[in-house]
């Protein structure tokens, strides 16, 4: 690299402002959400009653079972089970 005058350096440093913290955190938590999703899906496949509760009222079923309601997980489950 060459020809980096200070004005150009300043412009390049300023070209990458931070992304909103909440976005970054949500992306960083993807593996955790993925693990929770896999666990709930596996359980729903093995436990018909749990699956029916999920389909009837997803958020209530998750709350009753003590799962943290991560919005990404809830949305993925809603699509998967076509829940209310």
């Amino acid at each position: 690299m060459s020809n980096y005058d200070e004005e150009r350096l300043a412009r390049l440093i300023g070209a990458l402002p931070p992304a909103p913290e909440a976005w970054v955190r949500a992306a960083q938590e993807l593996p955790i959400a993925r693990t929770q999703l896999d666990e709930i899906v596996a359980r729903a496949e093995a436990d018909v009653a749990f699956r029916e509760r999920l389909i009837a009222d997803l958020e209530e079923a998750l709350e009753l079972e003590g799962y943290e309601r991560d919005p990404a997980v809830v949305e993925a489950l809603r699509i998967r089970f076509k829940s209310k």
Partner: protein
Amino acid sequence: MASALSDTELVGRCRSGDQQAWAELVERYSRYVYAISVTAFRLPQHDAEDVFQEVFARAYQHLARLRDDAALRPWLAQVTRRLCIDKLRASSREQPAADEDLVPADAEDTVSMLDEALAVREAMAGTPERCQEILDRFFARDESYRTIGEALDLPPGTIGSRISRCLKRMRELLEGRNEPGPASGSG
């Protein structure tokens, strides 16, 4: 501060289920993905947020299949571009237009500039932490001397000269003229 792991090492660790490595990968590329969508493609924040989450969701899913671990950055850039174009198409449904009319004319030049900005940012890691902090706060976070002074417990009147010294240090690093010496931004 970010570790010195290469992309190849980071991707390898992510693949083996290391959540800390994944968090670092997201941190390393979050600004880049964000800037492509808001600066190069000029997406509004709500669309940029969808693109941001989708890029990292796809990255997470595709890590195992990435052909060349060192090619993570161009792969992320390409996925971000495609998703931005999809968003622009979706928002112009009522008035269909060709992609060349939807995409800002200078989008590719801006992405090239962001590639360079990312390289500069990586080089910044070679400066003292105080330098990294000051340069980032002033230029990337747009903070005033006063805010920086309060945050770092420094007299605001010294911030300007510290920025100058840090930029000089960066310039030396980038031009390969760096000589070992005391931390210029911390004094």
